[in-house]
């Protein structure tokens, strides 16, 4: 079980690194024009929605990973 915990920690770390890459490449370049002073606000709303979706996906992947690692450990 302890090996599984270290594996889970490492998996979480990898997910953070990959998630960071997606955030920088996906959210970073988003800019909106044509709404005057509201440009930054609309861009922020879009970034917030994408960030929330990414976090939800991250949690789902983590849940699957948790079930996979610990069920495998318990069976062995």
């Amino acid at each position, binding site marked *: 079980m302890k090996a599984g915990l270290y594996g*889970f920690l490492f998996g979480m770390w990898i997910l953070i690194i990959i998630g960071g890459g997606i955030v920088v490449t996906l959210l970073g370049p988003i800019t909106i024009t044509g709404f005057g002073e509201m440009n930054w606000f609309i861009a922020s709303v879009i970034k917030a929605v994408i960030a929330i979706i990414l976090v939800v996906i991250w949690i789902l992947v983590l849940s699957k990973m948790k079930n996979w690692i610990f069920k495998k450990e318990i069976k062995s």
Partner: protein
Amino acid sequence: MIDLALPAAVSCIVAFIVVYVTTPPLIKFLEKRNMAVKDMNKKEDIMVVRPGGPSIVLGIIVSEIVLYAFLQLNEIIALIITTTAAFAIGYVDDRKVMGGWFKPVLLAIAAAPIIALGAYDTDLAFPLFGDVQIPALYLALIILMIPIMGNTINSIDVLNGVASGFMVIASFSLTICLFIVQNYEIAIVSLPLGFVSLAFYKYHKIPSKIFPGDSGALTLGAMYGCIAIIGGVEIIAAVAMLPAVINSFLFLSSVKRIVEHRQIKGKPVEHTEDMKLKATDDKTAPVTLVRLILAGGPLSEKQVGFTIFKLGIFSGILAIITAFMMGVRL
């Protein structure tokens, strides 16, 4: 950097001595007032006083004031106010049991001084890929960071010495990371957290003479979250804290709502005849880090504590690797 050596040394000594010296009288004071709870993991009816938060927050305030005298940083003022507010919220919860939403909401408000004093940078730094500018989103991150870190440390405070011992490992790892990313001033500001935790661990380690209580755990967690924001090392701080984050994640994903631990009816852990800890088969009980550690078989409280510390060291190493990766671009 050499100019920072004196403030660093003085603040570390002050942080350690204040907590080391004030905790014994606090224990006596709490004993006189009968402010004690049963240590659930001991065979005999051993009562342990709580909360240790007052000596922890005193150590932090005094050492950070010393640092402010040298460095005059707005960030230090924000850190002192936010940490003190977190202590006050925890102390109210120590004295009177509040609802599950009480702490997260008030801790979010406690983050306001960081925003008001402008003690943050809106760039979120990621390893390998660089920074992303998220001005509005970053404000939400600040508001979320303090309650998350506070409650994360609070949720791992389940065995003798674990919260303070884990905090020693996580905070010193974070300080090393701040030096690696060359944020020397905030690295110095973060040092007292490790020394305060180390001094408190002396009394909190197994067998505990005092428990930190919500006031102590929230103070440590809020200061850690505050350092992550003012130091611009949010991702690194999260990595160093991964075992505690896993504990909160497992708890929330099994309970599926924000509740106080005391509101949970199912027991995740029980005791064997020789008072070792053992995972239960109770399906209504939340999945926790301790329960997973015990899934391999019963262990003593000390063994479980050391397993959590080893996980803390592992995630501390991952945090240091992450800090080095901050300087690398793909």
